[in-house]
């Protein structure tokens, strides 16, 4: 029983830390209406930068996290550049950056495919040492604090003139351009903020799990979409923008809880990505199917 509880706690801590990545995905997928596949690369980028700076260069772990975020901003800017200046479709722009980042991430880690942080200080080890709490309790705590902070920051940002222009870009691009907004710039900005959050999350996950791996971002976009979908189902009735943002984090926590449960039930960990893909596919299909079903049902040959 305590084993179950422990794995649940682990799942929650992973959920909140990954939840910050999901916030990033939410910005592009829900607000900008773009599926940005840079995410897989920028998540790993954040992790790799963080590990290299902490282990290799002996950086302060907090500064390393900031560096992770900055690297994500740059990655997002590159996707934004490909999309708005080269006018490559958004999905393809993301894929190009993602692929390029794989090589860059290996270069950053000096050709090694993973870096362990076993002996280095991390934000988490500091707090463990200071408070005597367990690693996973500290992860939950830090995760929740950071996630709440990010939600508040994003909530405020999207309430500003610039944030509103960004939301309008996703809602009706022609309209907001007719109102004097350079939509190339707003798209670029959204991609940067999104990937900044994703890479920041990558850095946090790297410090909490005490290693960075070249493949740590693989499938991140699917986890992000699955979490958004789950969060939407659980909190879909709440319409305020703040609750929508927090639904992304809640979705991520529930996703990792589901994952922990099915893993405990004996599922092979490697099958998890398959399961995620199936969840996302069905979640995207359900609204389409119910709509079709409604149309079919409302048809009658003679009319009422």
């Amino acid at each position, binding site marked *: 029983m305590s084993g179950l509880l422990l794995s649940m706690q682990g799942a929650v801590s992973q959920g909140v830390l990954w939840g910050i990545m999901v916030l990033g995905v939410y910005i592009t997928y829900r607000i900008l209406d773009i599926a940005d596949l840079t995410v897989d690369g920028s998540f790993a980028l954040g992790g790799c930068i963080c590990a290299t700076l902490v282990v290799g260069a002996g950086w302060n772990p907090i500064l390393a996290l900031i560096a992770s975020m900055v690297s994500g901003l740059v990655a997002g800017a590159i996707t934004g550049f490909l999309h708005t200046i080269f006018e490559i479709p958004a999905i393809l722009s993301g894929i190009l950056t993602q692929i390029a980042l794989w090589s860059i991430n290996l270069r950053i880690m000096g050709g090694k495919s993973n870096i362990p942080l076993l002996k280095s200080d991390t934000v988490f080890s500091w707090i463990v040492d200071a408070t005597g709490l367990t690693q996973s309790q500290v992860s939950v705590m830090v995760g929740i604090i950071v996630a709440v902070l990010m939600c508040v920051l994003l909530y405020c940002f999207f309430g*500003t*003139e*610039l*944030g*509103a222009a960004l939301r309008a870009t996703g809602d*009706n691009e022609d309209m907001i351009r*007719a*109102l*004097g*907004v350079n939509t190339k710039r707003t798209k670029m900005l959204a991609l940067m903020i999104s990937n900044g959050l994703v890479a920041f999350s990558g850095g946090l996950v790297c410090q909490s799990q005490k290693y960075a791996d070249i493949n740590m971002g693989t499938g991140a976009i699917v986890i992000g979409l699955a979490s958004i979908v789950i969060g939407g189902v659980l909190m879909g009735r709440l319409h305020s923008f703040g609750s929508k943002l927090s639904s992304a984090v809640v979705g991520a926590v529930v996703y990792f809880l589901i994952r922990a449960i099915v893993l405990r039930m004996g599922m092979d960990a490697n099958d998890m990505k398959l399961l995620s893909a199936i969840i996302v596919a069905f979640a995207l299909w359900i609204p389409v199917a119910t709509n079709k079903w409604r149309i079919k049902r409302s048809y009658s040959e003679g009319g009422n």
Partner: protein
Amino acid sequence: MLKIINVHKTFNTGTINEKKALCGIDLHIKEGEFVTVIGGNGAGKSTVLNMIAGVYPIDAGKIILNGENISRKPEYARAKYLGRVFQDPMKGTAAGMEIEENLALAYRRGRKRTLKWAISKEEKVKYQEELKKLDLGLEDRLSSKVGLLSGGQRQALTLLMATLQKPQLLLLDEHTAALDPKTAAKVLDLTETMIAEHNLTALMITHNMKDAIRLGNRLIMMHEGRIIYDVQGEEKKNLQVKDLLAKFEQASGGEFANDRMMLA
């Protein structure tokens, strides 16, 4: 005020679908003029408006607004001078955002978007007053999503958004064509009131010849990328629909009978 000098535009140049949309348009509009634009499908009416707004670049010529050559400015940079209402009621508003948010976006047309709050308290009061003038009951629904409104309500809101920050020139691209006759009449009345109230200079495309004659103080007719008739003052006031039909038939050699303008 607005000077369009010898503007040319060809779409799909060098392909089998090549279409000369504008063939040397010259048009001078004076401050305070309300110009109605009529013409058959493909005459280039919408293209003229889109050229002024900068939706796509022109091939040749100049567009000068209040002494400034705006021919090569991007669409978003011209927005500060122009209020626009489109034919499609869905196009002028953001459906997923609230009524007051849409108004606040429009209120800042052409201004730099900063990190100040998107809407201030004083603005909300102003919006409520402005919405009351529309007489559609929207003043009590400031925080409703625009997607919940009907096409007519959305078009009226777009009109308000276009004039909230007084534009140098108001561009109306068949903005009542997608509405039912009753709603169209209401939106048209609103248009007239707003133009008179704010003393706006406006360019309005319409397919309804009666409206084109009744409204505004100048009328131009386009055909195959050219302005073929330009009338104002007393002469316009005395114009009859049959005069316009005759004029058009003369220009197009009878093909006019097929055009949907007949229906209007």
